[in-house]
């Protein structure tokens, strides 16, 4: 299974939100999408997930353009969690997770859907919140509820997690460090079980430790794409973000790890980036 974007552009007024981006996502692979604010990360994700049609270029899932899929057929093959997704306050958590099984409402049995909802809730550690209304949950608890919903949406029919594609836009936002790593580990596990996962992340080290591949986006174009040690170089980060980092090697995993350089020259560089942006 692959999702393949070929030379896609999104143009709004005079601005090119995406400018000739080509990218393919494969099953079993975890890709991290990084880039400064306004680089076009969410736009690229929406195009790949079929939530937005690019003005130029095509996106294909297993050879068929996304427009050829019925919405519910597409929904059985990919799930999306955007930023600031709403949830009505009175909705009960397991009802929220069960919404992920909507695309299967005509084909699956109630009992089967229920066990998938339960499995997804366990995977995201929210089973102790059964029966709670969304308005009584903390931001992190609600975020994990949404994650369970998207995991349930691409759950295999035979009861195992990990099929289809999962798109998560900053899934670690509003989580404490423990749950940030929990979510990243679960995303990694889903990829190992066979899902194709695309994560939008801001933390370089989160990306380095979980992703097979990192895509660095800036002003609507891909600057670099490849394994973490090729993309997370001090030079590329300085060029794109205008900040100075020091790269060390993680003592246990051997992953590249970026730390902020001692304050000083970095400050002037940051100002430089802001002015060049305007």
């Amino acid at each position, binding site marked *: 299974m692959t999702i393949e974007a070929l030379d896609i552009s999104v143009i709004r007024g005079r601005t090119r939100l995406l400018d000739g981006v080509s990218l393919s996502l494969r099953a079993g692979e975890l890709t991290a999408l990084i880039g400064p604010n306004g680089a076009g990360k969410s736009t690229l994700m*929406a195009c790949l*997930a079929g*939530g937005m049609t690019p003005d130029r270029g095509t996106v294909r899932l297993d050879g068929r353009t996304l427009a050829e899929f*019925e*919405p*519910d*057929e*597409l*929904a*059985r093959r990919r*799930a*999306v969690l*955007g930023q600031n*997704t*709403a*949830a*009505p306050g*009175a*909705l*009960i958590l*397991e*009802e929220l997770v069960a*919404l*992920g099984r*909507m*695309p299967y*409402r005509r084909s699956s*049995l109630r009992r*089967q859907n*229920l*066990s998938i*909802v*339960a*499995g997804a*809730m*366990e995977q995201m550690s929210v*089973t102790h919140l*059964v*029966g709670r209304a969304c308005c009584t949950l903390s931001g992190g608890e609600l975020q994990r509820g949404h994650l369970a919903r998207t995991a349930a*949406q691409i759950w295999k029919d*035979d*009861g195992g997690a990990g099929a289809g594609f999962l798109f998560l836009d900053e899934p670690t936002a509003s989580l404490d460090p423990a749950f940030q790593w929990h979510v990243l580990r679960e995303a990694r596990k889903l990829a190992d079980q066979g899902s194709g996962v695309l994560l939008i992340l801001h933390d370089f080290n989160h990306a380095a430790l979980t992703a097979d591949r990192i895509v660095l986006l800036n002003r609507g174009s891909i600057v670099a794409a490849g394994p973490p040690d090729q993309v997370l170089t001090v030079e590329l980060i300085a060029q794109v973000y205008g900040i100075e980092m020091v790269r060390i090697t993680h003592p246990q995993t051997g992953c590249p790890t970026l730390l902020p350089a001692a304050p000083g020259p970095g400050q002037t560089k940051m100002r430089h980036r802001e002015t060049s942006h305007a």
Partner: protein
Amino acid sequence: MSTMAIDPATEGTINRIAVEIGRRQRRRWLAILVMAAAAAAVTAGLSLGAVGIPFVEVWAILSGVHAPADAVHAMVVMDLRLPRVITGLLIGASLALSGAALQGLMRNPLADPGLVGVASGAALGAVAVIVFASAWLAGWPGPVQRIALPLAAFGGGLATTLLIYRLAHRGSHTDIALLLLAGIAVNAVAGAVIGFAVFVSNDQQLRDLQFWMLGSLSGISRDGLLPPLAMMAVSVLGLWRLAGLLNGLSLGERDAHYLGFDTERSKRILVLLIALGVGAGVAVAGAIGFVGLIVPHLVRVVLGTDHRFVMPASALLGGALLVCADTVARLVVLPAELPIGIITSAIGGPFFLMLLIRHRRELAS
């Protein structure tokens, strides 16, 4: 199916969710209560009035085993009251469901077909036909004349729904202030046109017009009732079927799309069905306010937000409420009748104020 292995921990969670769902579903006795209320309202509506007919006799007449001596009673029940009660049930059901659907579509608990102007738009269409097109319509055969009124009301309701939706919808959310202000504007225009129509109309037209402004079921007769009843039935069944979509829409339009709903197409169908139900209801009985606001709220307090339960319960409760209000309207000022809109507004106005107080903090932001 079951080749799938479920580990004990998942089994435990399943059981806890099942218990939780069961706990909520035990509220189904309330569904039975609502059905009983609807049945009681229908019986009361058939039994009470200028001529009181005992409940037992009503049921006997309905089942067709009445004695010949009750011929007048039978006529009152079957020819006068039954069409009125059935119409009341359907209007109440379609107003309540239109309210629930509008609230789901706009993702806002304060949307009501009356408040946001859909009912006024429909009344505008109907008044246009009564006053300005009656002479022209007289040349057409009877069935065309009878369907023209509900169709015009449907058209007016549809145009208004589209207008307010376009106006109040920004990005992924609906601005409640814009929505209610648009409703005020539409209501003002409708008020002006209806006022003008009153001014230029003759006595017969004036009598027809009076109930548009207040809403009343007194004009009901079997004649020409079938087209609007069919329209309301289509609206009620259609909106009920869209309960799943409304659940998906509660996460926002883009997320509903990601969940596999053809959001654009479904939204068009939703708007059409709302306009169809409200338009047909207005064509028959004028603008009856607040039913679409009160009923879904009461239902949600008890049954939660799942539209698969909210929709059927709202339909039943809405129907029961309207039949009760109509029965009261027929009884309080005998031998005259009170317009039913006065009663629903008398209940609905304070209810709306209460909601505003409850949602004050959210609305202020």
